[in-house]
């Protein structure tokens, strides 16, 4: 469904992605592991059209994304939950969700249904719906960021370090959400530092090093092979 073929990207003059190739099939959870600064976040940004792509190809559902502006990706079915969460801090929780719900062509009944669904999944957001996004705790902001992506009814969610800096209780909640999305048939490209969580949640895993994919395989195989994990990730 989403295919990156030999993608190169630059930040200004520095060459950060040196030919990344990744494939995610419909409904699949794919982990993207690697140490800090190897280009995992940049890979997601390349899909979103937020870094200068200097080579290779990104194809989604048969369509080359090179000519698609960022604001049309949501309608294609690509949602992004960035590392910094990027909640609209001065907008209320409900208004944050409305940025995804007020899209043309969405029937009012369907709109209500989507809102109801994320509120059912994250009851705390219903409670806080009239509170400014910036006043939420880190964990609540992460939930809002995921909920905001969910109301877009995406085919794939690019999930960047969702558990970073969260308390263990929140981490297990995020794990549940990833499972639930998986059950609903949403594909996820999961960038994480939390190796056990990724190996548990993902079907397949890619490991990046210095802007390229160094290893790729079934999550189950990696779980059974701690030596490989140590070699690539140093943990």
């Amino acid at each position, binding site marked *: 469904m989403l295919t990156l073929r030999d993608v190169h990207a630059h930040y200004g003059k520095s060459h950060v992605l040196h030919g990344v190739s990744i494939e995610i099939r419909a409904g699949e959870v794919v982990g993207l592991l690697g140490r800090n600064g190897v280009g995992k976040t940049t890979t997601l940004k390349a899909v*979103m059209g937020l870094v200068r792509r200097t080579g290779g190809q990104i194809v989604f559902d048969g369509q080359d994304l090179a000519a698609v*502006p960022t*604001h*049309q*990706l*949501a309608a294609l079915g690509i949602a992004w939950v960035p590392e910094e969460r990027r909640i*609209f801090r001065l*907008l209320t929780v409900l208004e944050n969700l*409305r*940025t995804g719900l007020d899209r043309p062509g969405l029937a009012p009944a369907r709109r209500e249904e989507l809102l109801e669904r994320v509120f059912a999944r994250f009851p705390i957001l219903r409670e806080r719906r009239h509170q400014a996004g910036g006043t939420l705790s880190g964990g609540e902001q992460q939930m809002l960021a995921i909920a905001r992506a969910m109301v877009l009814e995406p085919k794939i969610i690019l999930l960047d370090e969702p558990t970073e800096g969260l308390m263990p209780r929140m981490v297990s909640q995020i794990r549940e959400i990833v499972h639930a999305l998986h059950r609903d048939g949403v594909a996820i490209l999961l960038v994480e530092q939390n190796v056990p969580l990724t190996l548990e949640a993902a079907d397949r895993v890619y490991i990046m090093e210095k802007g390229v994919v160094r290893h790729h395989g079934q999550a189950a195989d990696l779980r059974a092979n701690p030596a490989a994990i140590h070699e690539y990730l140093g943990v």
Partner: protein
Amino acid sequence: MDQLIVQTLHGLVTGMVLAMVASGLTLIFGIMDVVNFAHGDLMMLGAFTGATVLGVTGSFWLALLAAAIAIAVLGVLLQITTLRPLIGRDPLTTILATFGISLVIQKYALWQWGPSVRRITEPVPGHFTLFHLEYPWYRVATALLAGVIIAALWLFLKYGKYGIWIRATTQDRVMAQAMGIPVPLVHTAVFAIGSAMAAASGVLFGPFAGVTQTMGFDFTLRAFIVVVVGGMGNLGGSILASIFVSLVEAYAAIVVSPAQAVIVSFVVLVLTMLFRPTGLFVPTPK
């Protein structure tokens, strides 16, 4: 005492017109990081358009509407041709570009309408006596109308679907795009709204002192002062600052001549930059 009341009224009236000009400027800055030096000239062009329509139709309100629409369309064209390609570039680039637009509009107005002052007759006749002074009802009506327009803008931004798009884009352009908001279109629409408000203020202000091709620069300058004093890109702050600066100027005019009173607003600007560079009416960042 009576002078104080007269000057309070005077300060409030000019403050409301200034607030209308400044709210467009601050909205545009907030969402695009574009410092629009041509803003006052769009106001001037709106005033001339209004005066022309008034001359033909004889209806002030029609002139107001026509000027707002015409300048909004011009704003759309300017934004698409000049500013859209420059978004995200060094602020100096957009400053130079809008400064260029400002000069072009001024020279066009000089060529088209000449250097003389054009009058716009007041649509609301009559005066009322305030102590020793005959105060025109029209000025009070202008302040009220400006208040209504600003309130409408605020309500639209707060509750309207597109208002939420505008606020989201202002806060985080990249994330707004990722949520599917058509950011380039939002930018153009905001520039159109700002231009329409500038044009409407031009027509409203027309009867105060007449329409000249240099009136824009004066307003650009004053609008900048209040946008900086109110906190760049902060709508509520700019409106409060407009009224605050206008009142301060009005009170100063009791003691010194009105020309000297203008200096006071520059003093407010310099003091704000020195002690509260984020703006007077913004909560201290935590």
